């Protein structure tokens, strides 16, 4: 991880623009708050790539110029002007749009885990400037770069870079040359276009801000902060693999968001079944949260509620299929799994007699299918069992214990052969 500087200095970057109320931006240049370091990301082929961090500095945000909706005039939204932000500057160490998005996700996981940013990219809480260049295979030197400003989602990072890479390659192959410039990515048209036609050499006249004293951080303060640090995503991911036996994938997904990781651990503590808990959280819960555009923090189903539901699956009170129904009721109406199972009569049928009756009924009704089963090669019969299973479950409204049904069904059908 990058190191904190014991002393950092605020400077003024002077330029005129209507969204900059003071005529200068308070920022850091020569002595930023965070010095060099690196962050490791996982690439698609499972390898680790190290992305070096040049530095991170604190600065104030500017306002927002609104060029539409004002009939030939510009509006200025100053609400975010003067609010602090940290800009993290990497070295040119990423080799694809996927790596860039993975890097952004890793930063996102760290800053949200630390609680220094809510990570809401749609609202601009985290934005990304992507510098993009291309070069022929084997060439050492990087090509001329362009900068894509203010990209606000991981998906757009990938698409913007891919689009810009294609543009640069086309340009060069047509005998053109990439100009160093700032470009804007338009997600609607999926294209990048030049933002500032005249990249005039602005002299920002940086100098130390005389209104703000240098920030000096002592070791005691750093130690106190360190002691309060939560477990960071990488460490948590490793622990999820070791402690809970999760797959790389599940561990990665669950640890990328602190609230989700906390939720998972709470559920697992109550169910003592990490794998099943992980499946439910990355499966059903994630699906409904996505649909409702909610974060896990605002999940209508609490960790306790989900754990209660998983425990009823574990002790065979309900089937996995019924569990999904219970979960949707919990999501929409609230309540504990026990209450819902009781009220709706969803208990799994484990009674062998009842199951046998249902199976006999199905075999009696589906004479054609039974004949096909008998006629089939023995090694094909396994697949055909699914049909009968479905019929039995339908008959029992999904409540029959599927393991039991399968065993008895096979036994009875095979007897007929």
């Amino acid at each position, binding site marked *: 991880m990058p190191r904190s500087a014991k002393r950092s200095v605020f400077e*003024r970057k*002077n330029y*005129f623009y*209507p969204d900059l*109320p*003071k*005529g*200068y931006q308070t920022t850091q240049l020569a002595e930023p708050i965070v010095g060099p370091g690196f962050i490791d990301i996982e690439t698609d082929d499972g390898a680790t790539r190290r992305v070096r961090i040049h530095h991170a500095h604190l600065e104030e945000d500017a306002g927002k110029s609104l060029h539409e909706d004002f009939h030939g005039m510009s509006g*200025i939204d100053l609400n975010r002007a003067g609010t602090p932000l940290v800009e993290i500057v990497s070295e040119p160490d990423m080799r694809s749009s996927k790596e860039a998005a993975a890097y952004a996700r890793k930063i996102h996981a760290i800053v949200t885990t630390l609680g220094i940013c809510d990570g809401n990219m749609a609202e601009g809480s985290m934005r990304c400037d992507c510098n993009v260049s291309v070069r022929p295979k084997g060439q050492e030197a990087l090509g001329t770069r362009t900068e894509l400003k203010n990209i606000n989602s991981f998906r757009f990072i990938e698409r913007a870079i891919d689009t810009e890479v294609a543009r640069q390659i086309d340009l060069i192959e047509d005998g053109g040359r990439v100009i160093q410039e700032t470009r804007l990515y338009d997600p609607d048209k999926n294209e990048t276009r030049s933002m500032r036609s005249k990249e005039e050499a602005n*002299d920002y*006249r*940086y*100098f130390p801000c*005389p*209104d*703000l*004293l240098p920030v000096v951080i002592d070791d005691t303060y750093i130690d106190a902060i360190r002691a309060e640090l939560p477990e960071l995503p990488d460490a948590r991911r490793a622990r999820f693999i070791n402690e809970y036996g999760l797959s790389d994938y599940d561990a990665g997904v669950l640890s990328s968001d602190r609230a989700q990781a906390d939720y998972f651990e709470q559920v697992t503590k109550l169910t003592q079944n990490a794998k099943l808990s992980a499946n439910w959280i990355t499966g059903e819960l994630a699906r409904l949260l996505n649909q409702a555009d909610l974060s896990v923090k605002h999940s209508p189903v609490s960790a306790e509620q989900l754990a209660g539901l998983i425990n009823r699956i574990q002790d065979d009170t309900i089937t996995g299929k019924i569990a999904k129904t219970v979960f949707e009721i919990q999501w929409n109406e609230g309540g504990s799994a026990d209450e819902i199972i009781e009220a709706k009569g969803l208990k799994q049928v484990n009674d062998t007699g009842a199951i046998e009756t249902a199976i006999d009924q199905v075999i009696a009704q589906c004479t054609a299918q039974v004949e096909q089963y008998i006629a089939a090669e023995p090694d094909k019969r396994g697949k055909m069992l699914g049909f009968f299973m479905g019929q039995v479950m339908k008959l029992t409204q999904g409540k029959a214990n599927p393991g039991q049904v399968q065993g008895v069904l096979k036994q009875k059908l095979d007897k007929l052969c």
Partner: protein
Amino acid sequence: MFNLTLSELSQALSRGDFSSLELTQALLDRIQRLDTTYNSFITLSEEQALEQAKAADALRAAGKATALTGLPIAHKDLFCTQGIRTSCGSKMLDNFVSPYNATLVERLNQAGMVTLGKTNMDEFAMGSSNESSYYGSVKNPWDTDRVPGGSSGGSAAAVAARLVPATTGSDTGGSIRQPAALCGITGLKPTYGRISRYGMIAYASSFDQAGPMTRSAEDAALLLQAMAGEDPLDSTCSTQAVPDYSATLNDSLAGLRIGLPKEYFAEGTDPQILQRVREAISEFEKLGASVKEISLPNTQLSIPAYYILAPAEASSNLSRFDGVRYGHRCASPKDLEDLYKRTRAEGFGPEVKRRIMVGTYALSEGFYDAYYRKAQQIRRVIQQDFVAALNEVDVIMAPVTPCSAFRLGEKNSDPVSMYMEDIFTLSLNLAGLPGISIPCGFADHLPVGLQIIGNYFAEGKLLNVAHQYQQVTAWHTQAPANLSEG
């Protein structure tokens, strides 16, 4: 009534000689009658003043009055005052009414003081004669053909003309002490950071310091007490505890070690001024002080260093006046660049433009090291000179100005000779040290100031030394002749 100091007025109010409302009304009438001559006020805030006075009288009737309750004051027009125009002496802010109070204004309001209005000043506090004000020159009450000094010229003239017993000023490069000297009043520039700068329109942030301008050191102590102290809204404001300044006013000066920097007594200063300063020093010897020659060898570098650093900061601080959100805006701009250029060309006067240009140049790429960085190094050297000197002596004494009040227009065409006015004062701003200017006699019927310089946060000592001098002399009680008593 008009000749009384704050302390005397406070006693008169307690005795019931007159009410705050009567006092306020009398002063407002006097200002309206006399200030057509002096032009020391830009804005009078009659309504608010009468309301504050009534509230103060009510407090007093309820037995809740404190030292400053019901006492009148006027603020230099660069302190933001809620509901009262704050122009900074500039066309740029001619229409600007601040939505909030400067911390200093807020504190004096809380102390129950009555704000009579806002005093004239050099535009954006840039000047030493008050001639750069958009609202016209202020006239020195001792001789209305002469300047009152600047940039707090209106604040100094108003106190000298007995229009108000005390005012606030600001001192970036001598702007409290020089007009105090030229107008024959007491002016204190505290240590940098002693008083919050929040709501004080910035000229050069690392130099700017507010302070009281009064008729006595005793009054300055009263005001500083209310103005000084920590402010979370200004990160450069000191957290150091504020001592009881009045409690040490009467400490004995026996054994006080006074340093006289030989560079401040060299040729180039009016011999009459040097004579008055020497006479003042002999008074201190009578009070038991000892005198020693010291050296501040880099004094000559203070003007060039100051005129790099202060304009550099100003060029950035004044960027906010762009016609976009408040203040002057040019008529029907063609585009954004036209808006910026014409707004600023029309809104700023020549001295402000000069300093913005100088400062912009000094910070430009390729010149930064030669000018800004070099000047910062000189600043450190000058500060070290003072620190070394103040290891050997308790206070340093010197003239405030090389000459007494000069004629209106005399130095207007020669910026450098105007800048030389501040040779004895602005090195303190480079070092961040406190200094006080007190009247010590006359040169051809014009007031002469004595400057007393102390160590960081030694305002208590400076006020003690000045007060003891004012106990054995009467220069500070002298009023200009021909002031109508009304």
